[in-house]
């Protein structure tokens, strides 16, 4: 199992969380901490960049749901970018794509996040 590494990049009202490695239920602490930091920095939208995601199990998908609930509770928005065809299919299969907008690149994601 590869560790989860999350890189936070603040760009005005939006934050980019670049996720590297694995996303499983064990990633909860790191992911929620990163989100908390983004929110504390004033981000009203968070872009999840999955370009370097290597592995995700169903625990990881569940984690994204709880993250989404937390974002919505704070009036924030979540968008996603960098999904490979494989992970985009998983978003579609789980119908997570109906709640988290998916964009092909970071620029489009940023535009959507700050719209």
């Amino acid at each position, binding site marked *: 199992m590869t560790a989860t590494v999350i890189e936070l990049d603040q760009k005005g009202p939006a934050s980019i969380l670049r996720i590297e490695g694995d996303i499983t239920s064990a990633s909860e602490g790191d992911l929620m901490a990163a989100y908390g930091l983004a929110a504390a920095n004033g981000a009203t939208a968070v872009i999840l960049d999955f370009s370097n995601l290597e*592995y995700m199990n169903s*625990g990881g998908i569940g984690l994204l749901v709880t993250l*989404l609930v937390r974002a919505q509770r704070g009036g924030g928005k979540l968008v996603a970018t*960098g999904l490979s065809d494989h992970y985009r299919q998983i978003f579609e299969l789980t*119908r*997570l794509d109906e709640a988290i907008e998916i964009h092909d690149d970071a620029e489009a994601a940023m535009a959507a996040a700050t719209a």
Partner: protein
Amino acid sequence: MVETKDTAPASADAAPANRDAANWARPVDRLSAAGVQGAKDDAVTGKRVSGPLQGFGQLWQKSFSVRLEGADIAPTDLIVLWKERFPTFWPKGQSFYAPLSGIAPGEVALLEIAPLPGAPVKLSTGVLVLYADDESFTFMTPEGHTLSAWITFSARRDGDVTIAQAEALERPSDPFDELAYMLGGNRQNNTFWQATLGNLAKAVGVAEPTVETKSVCIDKNRQWRYWRNVRNSATIRSARRTLTAPVRKLTGRG
């Protein structure tokens, strides 16, 4: 690990190969349970999946876990056992009809559940095996199920002890399901999984298992845009089937 940076984003290179590819169900638009024997499949075939984001009611996060003290069984072996004998751990009166090829990604299983003990109506529905690996497997519910949910069954090691766990993210699917959930369905759902985990523990030799339960409402908002889920309600369908059975029998419409 969280790192912060103020530099421009790196270009998006091709994604590394993913190790989970074989563990996920393939994309499916509509479910098919035609190959599952033992129960009617019309409550599931043709339906879409419906997860915790597509339900009407409040969102609950639940965890049921049992320490298998004294049982000499590794987590991966427990998962093999759980997949092979899944229906046998369910409380009496509730039925799980596994696909012929077993619990594997993409397979569909059928369920017959009595909403209340001894109830004359049995709810016919099913689940999709969304994900499965050596240490866990996850079901996702179809449209019509009383819950729009994911539930993951897993096993892990804690020192010398294997722990079996069931974790759910669930929303009652429609307004009637939400009402039933509030009026006792939530508690009954917990009792069901506590009994299931207890039966699993006894099967591996734990004489008096203790199931630890955590149940938290993580989203108190109801998703009113999904009130129309009621049109797919397996509860209403099953009740109508039961009530009209005598008439159908008389008229030969089976």
